[in-house]
């Protein structure tokens, strides 16, 4: 099963993962990544905004690319928008495959694209106000690994 979702509400990564697992009886391995709002470094809140005509279609395109590149039994991409608190999940990517390498690399591939090549804009609330976050050079280098 392929599930791609934008969520304006908090979600439960464990419950989502369990639901995906049930759809993939042939998967010998399932890899997943949960990104959360870092509870350290003075961040009081994080806000992700999106642009309706581009963001979800872009995520669906990324899912298609991921499925074309790796041999998968199932794929799940859920990304939050809106205001989040430290510790809240931001993103969940999970992939099931007959063999582990496809599952692990598919998650890595999708995450690198979500970080710096998907239509999201992120800002953090610190003691001195909101700050827009642009990708770090490491994020661009991570993405370039897949070219």
């Amino acid at each position, binding site marked *: 099963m392929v599930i791609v979702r934008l969520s304006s509400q908090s979600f439960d990564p464990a419950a989502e993962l369990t639901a995906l697992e049930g759809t993939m009886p042939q998967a010998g391995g399932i890899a997943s990544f949960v*990104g959360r709002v870092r509870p350290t470094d003075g961040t009081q809140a994080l806000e*992700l*905004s999106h*642009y309706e*005509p*581009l963001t979800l*279609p872009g995520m669906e395109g990324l899912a298609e690319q991921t499925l074309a590149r790796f041999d998968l039994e199932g794929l799940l991409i859920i*990304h939050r928008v809106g205001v989040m608190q430290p510790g809240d999940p*931001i*993103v969940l990517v999970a992939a099931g495959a007959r063999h582990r390498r496809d599952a692990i690399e598919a998650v890595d591939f999708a*995450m690198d694209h*979500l*970080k*710096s*090549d*998907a*239509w*999201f*804009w*992120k*800002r953090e609330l610190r003691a001195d106000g*909101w700050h*827009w*976050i*642009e*990708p770090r050079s490491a*994020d661009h280098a991570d993405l370039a690994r897949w070219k």
Partner: protein
Amino acid sequence: MAARLILLGRLADLAGTPELAVPLGDAAQIDWPGLLALLPAALAEAATGPKIRLALNGAVLADKTTLIARSGDELALLPPVSGG
């Protein structure tokens, strides 16, 4: 007759609004220099930056300077993205 301009991320902060109306005048269309001329100076300056992309009706333009927008079109100025 007008088009809509949606501002994302820090560009919305810069403009003080997430959306601007773009009046089209007698020509009933507007190109990239025409759009820049209508924007507040700070926003126009930011919009010309190489990292700022432009979408027309949900499709990102390969070259924003080729823009031709007509009545009812939705434009969006897109600063560098950051997700996850």
